[in-house]
């Protein structure tokens, strides 16, 4: 606003001579004035609230590390942390194995490419809640999977799939697959085709061309996808809560339970552990592969 009023004053008098000094005086300050409203908003309604909550981990009542020390021999925390990490590793491997062929298919396809892209993007755009609900419908006792297997005579009574760890794993792999497919397809698309022609011309079989040329060149995409899927799956709450079993609690679910019991110090400790785990993993990837937050910009649906 101050920008505008200053220059309006100048516009009344001969334009160039009058506005220039005003702009020069404002020049170095302008970016700071532009940044002020968004930064103040993010600090007030996001960063300071989160930091205030996290501070409860070490300030309850006075400065103390007692809550973090207690985590060391807390069997519930250790089981939940282990379960969360195990789930994240499993889901990451699952999306990698299932996602790579789809990325190849997408990049190779010509006429079918728009259809393939639509089949990847449609679930990607659908909310996690709706997709988790879809898996409840599919995997339930009278869901499609059970009914189909009964009809085909593969089962004689319905299997219990919903509310087991397997249901969480299937649904999370489904939800996170596009985050693996899209970065891999991105790097595959950039591969110079003359390299493939050269490999073929030198007598390499399609399989060894893939193994020795395509796969190594697509590793940056694999790394970006792995980072995204792993970090996102660490924080999962909705899906395990809806389709998972009563016993396979994730770190996010435990945090929410502690807040419900107004156990803020414990919830803050767990939040700090979850956040630190995510940041360490991003840091390690940034060090090894030179990618960090950049991968997350691709996560925009």
């Amino acid at each position: 606003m101050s920008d505008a009023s200053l220059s309006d004053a100048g516009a009344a008098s001969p334009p160039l001579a009058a506005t220039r000094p005003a702009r020069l005086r404002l020049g170095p300050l302008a970016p700071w004035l532009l940044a002020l409203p968004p930064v103040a908003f993010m600090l007030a309604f996001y960063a300071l609230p989160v930091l205030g909550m996290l501070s409860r981990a070490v300030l309850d009542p006075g400065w103390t590390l007692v809550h973090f020390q207690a985590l060391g021999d807390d069997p519930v925390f250790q089981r939940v942390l282990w379960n969360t990490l195990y789930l994240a590793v499993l889901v990451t491997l699952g999306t990698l194995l299932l996602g790579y062929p789809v990325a190849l298919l997408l990049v190779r396809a010509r006429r079918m490419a728009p259809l393939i892209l639509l089949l990847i993007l449609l679930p990607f755009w659908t909310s996690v809640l709706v997709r988790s609900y879809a898996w409840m419908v599919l995997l339930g006792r009278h869901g499609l999977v059970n009914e189909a297997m009964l009809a085909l005579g593969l089962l004689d009574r319905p299997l219990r799939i919903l509310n087991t760890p397997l249901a969480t794993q299937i649904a999370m792999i489904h939800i996170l697959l596009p985050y693996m497919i899209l970065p891999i397809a991105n790097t595959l698309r950039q591969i110079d085709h003359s390299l493939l022609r050269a490999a073929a011309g030198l007598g390499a079989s399609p399989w060894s061309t893939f193994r020795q040329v395509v796969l190594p060149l697509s590793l940056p995409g694999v790394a970006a996808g792995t980072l995204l899927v792993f970090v996102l799956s660490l924080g999962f709450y909705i899906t395990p809560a809806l389709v998972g079993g009563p016993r396979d609690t994730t770190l996010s679910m435990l945090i929410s339970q502690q807040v419900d019991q107004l156990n803020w110090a414990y919830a803050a400790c767990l939040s700090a552990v979850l956040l630190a785990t995510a940041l360490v993993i991003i840091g390690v990837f940034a060090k090894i592969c030179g990618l960090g937050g950049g991968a997350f910009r691709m996560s925009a649906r």
Partner: protein
Amino acid sequence: MRLLTGGLFSGTLGWLVLLFLAAPILLVTVVSFSSAAYLTFPPPALGLRWYRAFLGSDSWLAASWLSLWVATVVVVISTSLGTLAALALARLPKAARGVVTGLILSPMIVPSIVIAIGVYYAFARYGLVGSPIGLILAHACLAMPFVVTSVTASLSGLDPRLEQAALSLGATPWGSFWQVTLPLIRPGVIVGALFAFITSFDELLVALFLSGTGAVTLPRRMWDDLRFAIDPTIAAVSTLTILLTAVLMGCAHRLRRKG
């Protein structure tokens, strides 16, 4: 010539995975048109009974309106503040740019549960739990990174000489923004606004803590229902939200390709 050869095996696997990706979405759509009183597949006959149930329920409609208008206000706040931030980032010195970028993009990295309980912890003291205002403030922060990344991408493709030309021809900084910069970055701003809308419209975790009983959004209403029964009204609501997000995201996708 098939240069990126993948064997028959990987091709087949690829199509099977695509089926796996699409099936749940298609299934929900089919179930929503079922005439049965409970969830069965395949539906015995097709009908609109669950859409009528949705349209006849005051609580579902109230939740839908709340979600729509909260998302609309979030779009206004996060798009204007996010565009300001993107303009500032293009001009700030390097060190300050790093700090501001870190602050504004961090909601993409910080796990949602941590943000949700953080805002709950702070907002509860100011009576912002159970009020749409609390939801709007928190959702605007979650949406900001999408606007900033999208507008920054547009700005990076902008020739700075155009702005300099406008200024040297006597335009005020304000005038050159409205008449030169904004029209050129408009696709990026619109894509950011669409992302912001969907971010708020689909958001559940913050709503779980901030909705209370006074500000129940659509995802929150679905969640409450899912805890008790999975009746097909949710399938109808889901199909409508899938349609809405697909249309909006489809627009964003096309705009981003062009831009």
